[in-house]
């Protein structure tokens, strides 16, 4: 609001507007995370925060083979991010530069699946890929060939992750690509650069903020993925989130689950902080 009398006393306009959100984040985000951390120091299989703290859960984790789950989660997140970058770049480029009046409608089309529960959409892939499903059933009845299905393999998990997280890569990337002033592209070209050189020297570095946000977002989400491995992978791989879930359900070991969650939080948090620190959010979001 018009701020004619911005005086020194009390909170600044900005802080006042930020206040409700900050309060909410404290009770809705910080406090729960602290609870998780607190739980991670409770003795195994306890249901409350009243017991004496211990490091047992962490000791258990490092003694166990949880590194396998961590490994899977990281590997698949990395693969997903890499694939998505390749898949989304041309689309982001098209959205920012080629599609013109079609791009809002395409954006919507890419958005719609976001609002349908992930489980259901993944189930659609089962129907498509399973033996006698849409794909193999069609092949069988039209061409009489019966190849093995690829369902319940790590590859399909990757497919599922790429599928689910695609919009999260696409949108920041589109933002990034549209941040590149067209004239810098033309200028580079005009100065003798080939298409590839324009891409490498100008296009890519200038759209980097958006691309990095996309990479980060998809990586973080993919590290937290669980449904893909369960539904499509038939648990041929067990990501860390699945480990956490088992600890909270069958194992009835909340503290162990909490400790695993804390480890995951540390990985994710560090990464997010590192990347976000490097970018000026105003430039990414505000530049129109």
């Amino acid at each position: 609001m018009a701020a004619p009398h911005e005086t020194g006393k009390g909170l600044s306009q900005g802080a006042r507007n930020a206040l409700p959100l900050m309060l909410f984040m404290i009770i809705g985000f910080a406090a729960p995370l602290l609870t998780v951390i607190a739980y991670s120091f409770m003795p195994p299989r306890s249901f409350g925060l009243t017991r004496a703290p211990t490091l047992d859960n962490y000791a258990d984790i490092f003694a166990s083979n949880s590194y396998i789950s961590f490994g899977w989660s990281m590997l698949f997140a990395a693969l997903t991010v890499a694939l998505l970058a390749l898949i989304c770049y041309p689309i982001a480029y098209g959205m920012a530069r080629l599609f013109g009046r079609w791009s809002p409608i395409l954006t919507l089309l890419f958005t719609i699946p976001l609002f349908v529960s992930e489980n259901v959409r993944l189930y659609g892939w089962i129907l498509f890929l399973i033996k006698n499903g849409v794909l193999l059933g069609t092949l069988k009845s039209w061409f009489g060939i019966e190849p093995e299905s690829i369902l319940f393999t790590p590859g399909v998990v990757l497919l599922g992750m790429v599928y689910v997280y695609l919009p999260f890569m696409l949108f920041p990337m589109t933002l990034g690509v549209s941040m590149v002033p067209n004239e810098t592209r033309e200028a580079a070209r005009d100065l003798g650069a080939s298409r590839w050189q324009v891409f490498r020297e100008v296009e890519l570095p200038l759209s980097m903020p958006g691309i990095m946000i996309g990479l980060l977002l998809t990586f973080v989400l993919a590290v937290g993925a669980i449904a893909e491995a369960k539904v499509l992978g038939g648990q041929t791989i067990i990501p860390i989130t699945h480990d956490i879930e088992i600890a909270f359900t069958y194992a009835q070991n909340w503290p162990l689950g909490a400790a695993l969650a804390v480890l995951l939080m540390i990985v994710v948090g560090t990464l997010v902080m590192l990347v976000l620190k490097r970018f000026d959010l105003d430039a990414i979001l505000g530049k129109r």
Partner: protein
Amino acid sequence: MPEGPNLLKVPKDCMSKRPPILQLKSLTKSFGTFNAVDGIDLDIAEGEFFTIVGPSGSGKTTLIRMLAGMEQASSGDIILSGTRINDLPANKRPTCMVFQSLALFPHRTVGENIEFPLKIKGIDPAQRKVRALALLDQLRLPPNYYGKSVLRCSGGERQRVALARALAFDPKILFFDEPLSAIDYKLRKTLEKELKDIHRETGKTFVYITHSLEEAMVMSDRIGVMRAGNLVQVGTPNEIYSSPKDKFVSEFMGDVNVIPVSMNGSRTITADTFDKTFTVATIPQAFSKGHLVIRPEFVRFVTEAKEAENVLEGKLYNEYALGSRIQYQVRVGENVFIVEKLRQHSSTLRRDQTVLIGWDAKDSILVTG
């Protein structure tokens, strides 16, 4: 025809003797059914400073984008040093454009920006740096700017970096699309002069778009006036100013007095809106209707009707001091005439005083358009 001053530019004949470096033959660019550039024929001589002016939307940008290779011509030819280059992409043409936004690479330093075309050509870093430093020097930027981020440069400095980058490419022709229009008045004046100096020093061909009449007048060897995709008139600044081809061109070149006139049976020129007959130096062939154009600096206050070949009586309505000159507005019936004088002429005129204004036949132009 007003007698123009003898300008100190390179003599015209000298210019036209040089071979044309760029020839446009019925060059056209259509967007859908609309012709943004509509069949332009033009020769630009090597080393010339050619300026394109024209109202917004007249196709100036589209024209030079075609020349630079950023837009594909719809029809016609672009011939560079005798070779048709229509199908050469921008990166293969020995031309370079300076954008209004400058299009500097914000993620690079001044030095890296300047070196960009050299890097693309595959020149090794040491040599690149030598050249970049030489260009910094040529453009009067201190050598320690080499490592500075372009984002930290002021408007004028950026301008120079953009120019240095273009020069590093060593193009045969440099295109400029309103490079100074976003810069404030004082700096613009300085940069105009610098640009002109660079043109002289490098001897390269410059094709320049501007909105500013003054800019065009100060810098150009020749000016082309565009309107709706066409070149309405091409000529030296002096020609354009003194012998505009039509009302549009004349009005485009600054304040002007324009009287709609018709040719009478008796071969006299009479005003359409008020009762007055004018003497003019020459009447174009087959003239019947058009405009009489008189530049305000050729109109003077007179005390008697016989002091000038054409005299009108009016009321002094307003007086503006525009820096070094003063404009007087004189109301003649429904029309307002502008009289311009240098400031040093003192006057004893008062508002609403009845005055006589006059001009000589040789100082007015009769245009058909």
